[in-house]
């Protein structure tokens, strides 16, 4: 891929194919951890970190382990194991090396193993047949898209909390889902920027 193509891939993975609002990956944390801006940003940062690392590791696993051994069909099993091990390892390493960062990201790390965005990006990279550079760019773009969408959502939800006119039955999650729908409409506006 040329540099221009990589840049376009980066933009499209942030805006056009936003991982949350157009691909529906990682909706559980998007709904669960988005009621406070600060925690949402912490979660988003942890996701960026893990998705980029996990994409690197799963790409290496797939291309240097599964393909030579003709075990491609075991990708689901091996990817999820690589991701689970990686998350554990990152947690340990952060605890030792950077306690400050650990304090702000640590609580989100165990949640990330079952975040389908991580496995989803790894599988997407594999399906699209991306090279290492493209896979990493796609991972970085997708996870930044996650950070962007969850931060926007948390900002909006903090404002919604102050609003008293919402009917009982719509408070909380249903209202958040409808808000996400409206955000998704706004993000559809980016569709035209990349052919």
């Amino acid at each position, binding site marked *: 891929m040329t540099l221009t193509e990589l840049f376009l891939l980066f933009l499209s993975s942030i805006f056009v194919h936003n991982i949350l609002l157009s691909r529906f990956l990682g909706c*559980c944390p998007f709904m*669960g951890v988005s009621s406070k801006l600060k925690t949402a940003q912490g979660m988003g940062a942890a996701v960026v970190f893990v998705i980029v690392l996990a994409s690197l590791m799963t790409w290496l696993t797939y291309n240097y382990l599964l393909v030579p051994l003709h075990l491609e069909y075991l990708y689901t099993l091996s990817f*999820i*194991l690589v991701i689970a091990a990686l998350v554990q390892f990152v947690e340990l390493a952060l605890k030792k090396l950077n306690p400050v960062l650990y304090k702000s990201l640590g609580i989100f790390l165990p949640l990330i193993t*079952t975040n389908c965005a991580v496995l*989803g990006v790894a599988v997407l990279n594999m399906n699209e047949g991306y090279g290492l550079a493209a896979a990493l760019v796609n991972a970085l773009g997708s996870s930044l898209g996650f950070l962007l969408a969850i931060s926007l959502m948390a900002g909006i939800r903090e404002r919604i909390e102050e609003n008293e006119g919402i009917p*009982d039955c719509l408070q909380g999650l*249903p209202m958040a889902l*409808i808000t996400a729908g409206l955000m998704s409409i706004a993000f559809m506006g980016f569709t035209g920027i990349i052919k």
Partner: protein
Amino acid sequence: MSQNNFRIITNGILADNPTFVQCIGLCPTLAVTTSVANGLGMGIAATFVLIASNMVISLLRKMVPDEVRIPIFIVVIAGFVTVIEFLMKGFAPELNKSLGIFIPLIVVNCIILARAEAFASKNGVIASALDGIGMGLGFTIALMFLGSIREILGAGTWLGNPVVSFEPAMLIVLAPGGFIVLGCCMGAFRAIQARAAKMRGLGATPAEARPAGCGSCIMAKFCNKTDEECEVK
């Protein structure tokens, strides 16, 4: 079938419906309900994995050390997901194509891991299989319900047959429609539950009397369960 076994099944369909009550497994719910057929396909695939993994995990429950149970559960689940992926590729290639990456992503579907952790690791094989059937049916029904609404309003068809005379709104089938339809359905489900509780003269448990873990639960407002009865947390 004994009373108790019957209740395990209906529990998953109504009282603890994974989509509308427990609100887990949102990603596949939003992504595959663009049509009834996709919703049904995803529901069947997830039900198969749920029943099979629940049974195996229930059989293994006494052998697995507590510290490593989650990785072991995930490996069992991933094994069955690989099986269903092969079956779909062989017997329903069209469906496999339209569900796309959401088939491998069944591994990280919280419903399956949650049932393994909350039910199968504590109960016998038959009860676990029934729980898998109940939860799977609850999930499938929810997916088909949402799929029907989106397909009828967004494409004007049901299972591919034209059913409406008005101009369908494409938006409902696209990504925003998924969020909005699910939000509205969840709101309606909660409104109906609240009304039913009121008619039975129960009313919601006051906030102070509720167990501690309910702060973030979406059903907290309408829920009458005590700490032990709660399966959501």
